[in-house]
């Protein structure tokens, strides 16, 4: 077994195993909706409202750089995934722009919090706009969603725009809804990227 002394005190990553990757590939397909979500697959209104609140809060907290609260929107067994292809392929076989378990997502936040992350000096300001959100029922205690997004980002006094669509899986743990998977599909995922060291 791996020496765990270095990861003591951190969320471990035992959950990201072959079965979890298979589930990601299943989600990857499920997010490609054919037509409107049939009434029978709609989540309950209460679940839908809870997930919608979560989606909007997650975007707002990222924009406001309240990154500790932002991390809290993610479940302990979550994946934050920005493919480097469009459409996304299997992350076991091709590199992504970012693919983090909860532990490496915490690393990402901690890097920014050191105060010497020069890619964020001056800090990059962002505003997410989310639209066309569709929700549907996943497994028990799981809701899935897909949305279009536009991010306006300001760095070094210049604006630029990122856009694409996001696939979500939300899970309910102890009564709380959390993001379990967020897959950000940039329309230019396989093209040249700028400084994207904020959270998408």
């Amino acid at each position: 077994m791996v020496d765990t002394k270095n990861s003591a005190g951190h969320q471990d990553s035992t959950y990201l195993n072959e079965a979890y990757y298979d589930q990601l590939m299943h989600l990857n397909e499920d997010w490609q909706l054919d037509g409107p979500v049939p009434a029978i697959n709609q989540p309950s209104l209460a679940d839908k409202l809870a997930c919608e609140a979560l989606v909007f809060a997650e975007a707002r907290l990222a924009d406001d750089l309240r990154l500790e609260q932002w991390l809290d929107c993610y479940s302990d067994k979550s994946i934050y995934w920005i493919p480097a292809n469009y459409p996304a392929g299997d992350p076991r076989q091709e590199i992504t722009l970012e693919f983090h378990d909860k532990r490496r997502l915490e690393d990402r936040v901690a890097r920014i919090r050191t105060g010497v992350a020069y890619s964020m000096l001056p800090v990059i300001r962002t505003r997410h706009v989310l639209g066309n959100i569709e929700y549907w029922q996943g497994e028990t205690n799981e809701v899935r969603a897909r949305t279009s997004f536009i991010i306006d980002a300001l760095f070094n006094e210049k604006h630029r725009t990122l856009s694409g669509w996001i696939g979500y899986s939300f899970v309910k743990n102890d009564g709380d809804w959390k993001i379990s998977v967020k897959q950000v599909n940039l329309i230019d995922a396989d093209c040249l990227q700028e400084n994207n060291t904020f959270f998408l």
Partner: protein
Amino acid sequence: MFSETWVYLAHASEIKEPNSFVARKMGQRSVIVTRDKENKIHALLNRCTHRGATVCREKKGDKTPFFTCPYHGWTFRNTGECAAIPHQDAYGEGLDKQQFNLKKVPFVSEYRGFIFATLNPEKGRKGIKEHLKSAAGRLDEWIDHNGGDHRAIRISGAQQYTVHANWKCLYDNAGDGYHPEFSHQSLLKMTQERYGSGMDLDYFSGGIDSTPMYSQSLGNGHSFLDQRPCMYENSAFERQRPQPGREAIVEQLTKEVGEQKAKAYFEMATGAGMNLNIFPNLLFIGNQMQVITPLSVGLSDMTWYSTTVDNVPTVVNTLRIRTQEDFTAFGEPDDTANFEACFKGMQEREIDWIDISRHLGRAEDSTDDSGVVTSVISSDIHMRTYYEEWKKLMQSNDASRLG
């Protein structure tokens, strides 16, 4: 300058099958790198010989023996040969179609799966090995780190970035052993805070010139920075920050192949510990390859190609890929911000010069029989050696290369 020397274009695994191709840049020229049905590799200028339109508009493809230009339908074989001109009779009797072949880069050569090309007949005739010089041996070591069989190495996607700086600002950094302690502070500090010391790149902190790491000029503008003496002092895998899924992979692989063998795979997945810079555009960084392409004076394409290996258990490649995502998210963005800041500074009118004199003329530097100069890790020898080559090439620039 990119017309004067050998330039890296693509990896053989990207055009594995006959009649496959990838679209690439050779400096600012668009080229199609093709493999014909006889397995011969060509680099064709992606410019229609009719009116100049871009013939191939896709980034890659297979089962493509012909390219048809979308404008007037002229069709070319993947060898460049002009195969068909619609309604050809209007050009009169006895038209020699060969005069309309796509222009080709005359010298294309492969070194153990790495495809290079040059427009310079003098360099072309001498061959790629003569150009690589001592870098070839280092490239062999990189292949050895990855299992030794170069045919098993495969490109597994790429992360592509623009850098708002001249391409040379990126190359400057490639052999700079001086900067990690400062430029990568966010990575070092975060790692120290969350995982303690003795981790990741922290051997770059403090008196680095007394470590066994070293920097070398390999000739022809190539250079090498060796982190292996520190990174592999004990186990590179153990000193690495844990990557996503590490625990599950360790458990599965140890069960599958036994502890000894699994350990060897983990070291291989961690990174080569080599910074091998093949002038002017191919940089090996860990298990990744970075390719630099100038887009304009102040804009560069920095593409990181990921590599995997065909003949290993699949989870080893999963671990390789998760590891290769790390530096581009945690290290490179801070460097990029610094390249961009350097380029901005270089445009200040009143100040012409930057400094690259660190460890210049150091008495302890040694030169071996093949002309390789070895210096300490924080030496600027990398920049001095490649600017020497760059200057030579800029002075010999022949604009009429393609005739």
